[in-house]
């Protein structure tokens, strides 16, 4: 089970371009609390004293409504529900729109060591971004031995046995101006059961390649910053294998696919033998795939032309 501490959520913030703008304003001692579910809760009801079905695993988001209600509660001295809500062990409270809770709330939070965060975003934007981040964080994950490259904007996963030439193929593709996402280990995430995103396992160590005979090379140093990407949707899967004389390979491009984490990815098996230029086959496959996405299939088109031709000869 994946989990994330509140501190990691704060740190994560620094790396994102679409930042959550979070700062911790109280309860710093509780920053090690774990976030275990990608759920958010708006604590309006519990604030009014109704605690049935209170989702105590969720991050509590205080929007403008909750904040005003909180001010009113403190003004009239009804602080029981505040004390009670903060006694629960949820990961943290986030005040959106740069709002600040009343001093009493902060004191109680400090007592219970419950982290109180503040975000400059309004609550709708904040929720959307938080869900996006948490969904990704808690997405089912698998690590695959392969190379992920971007070819003509398509995320192409290359797999195959060690030594079949995945890295060499990727290198040639890089030389032709395509991009490397990850060599050797590709960490794949299933995002909301709709698509797969692949990236390196370790940000600091990715974008190096091992080429037999050369050793380890640094891709952005050799090919420039435009030759790499951190992550990319996987749209296409090419499996390389040694040419097997007894096996029948695809001749008329019928569509095949295979599942990763329950999501179907179009897959081709490319037989490798000396003298076959694999990178150009991958490039062509990516071009074909783009055409197919627009509804055009080369083999089908040829077939219909052929049928028409045969008709005229009758």
């Amino acid at each position, binding site marked *: 089970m994946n989990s994330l501490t509140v501190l990691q959520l704060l740190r994560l913030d620094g790396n994102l371009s679409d930042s959550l703008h979070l700062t911790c304003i109280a309860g710093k001692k509780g920053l090690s609390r774990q976030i275990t579910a990608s759920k958010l809760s708006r604590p309006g009801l519990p604030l009014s004293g109704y605690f049935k079905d209170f989702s105590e695993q969720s991050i509590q988001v205080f929007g403008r409504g909750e904040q005003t209600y909180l001010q009113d509660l403190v003004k009239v001295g009804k602080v029981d529900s505040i004390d009670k809500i903060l006694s629960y062990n949820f990961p943290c409270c986030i005040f959106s729109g740069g709002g600040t809770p009343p001093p009493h709330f902060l004191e109680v939070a400090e007592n219970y060591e419950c982290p109180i965060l503040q975000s400059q975003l309004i609550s709708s934007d904040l929720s959307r971004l938080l869900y996006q981040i948490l969904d990704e964080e808690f997405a089912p994950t698998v690590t695959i031995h392969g190379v992920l490259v971007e070819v003509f904007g398509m995320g192409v996963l290359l797999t195959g046995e*060690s030594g079949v030439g995945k890295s060499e193929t990727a290198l040639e593709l890089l030389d032709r101006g395509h991009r490397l996402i990850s060599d050797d280990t590709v960490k794949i995430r299933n995002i909301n059961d709709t698509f797969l995103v692949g990236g390196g*396992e*370790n940000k*600091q160590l990715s974008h190096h390649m091992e080429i037999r005979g050369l050793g*380890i090379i640094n891709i952005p140093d050799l090919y420039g910053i435009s030759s790499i990407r951190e992550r990319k949707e996987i749209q296409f899967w090419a499996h390389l294998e040694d040419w097997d004389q007894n096996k029948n390979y695809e001749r008329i491009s019928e569509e095949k696919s295979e599942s990763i984490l329950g999501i179907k990815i179009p897959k081709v098996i490319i037989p490798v033998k000396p003298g076959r230029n694999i990178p150009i086959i991958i490039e062509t496959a990516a071009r074909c795939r783009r055409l197919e996405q627009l509804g055009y299939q080369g083999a089908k088109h040829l077939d219909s032309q052929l049928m028409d031709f045969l008709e005229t000869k009758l």
Partner: protein
Amino acid sequence: MVEKTLTVKNRAGIHTRPAAIIAKTAAKFKSKIFFEKGTMKINAKSIMGVITLGSPYQDILKMTCIGPDEEKQAEAMEKLFENRFQEE
């Protein structure tokens, strides 16, 4: 299938040189070999895979060997970790 737990015993952790030795040793055998750490699972026959683990001193890895010579492979790998990758 052989499953073993390995501990990184050299002070510097698995840097490039030990990673290369690990991959070379792993590749001497036919069996498939994987190292697991947290949610990471990598092919130990690949240098980049082993480097990606980012394993420091005293890190604990789970090793899985599958194939005809799995016993020998596991044994060789255990010995390598025990000898601190011929360092120190």
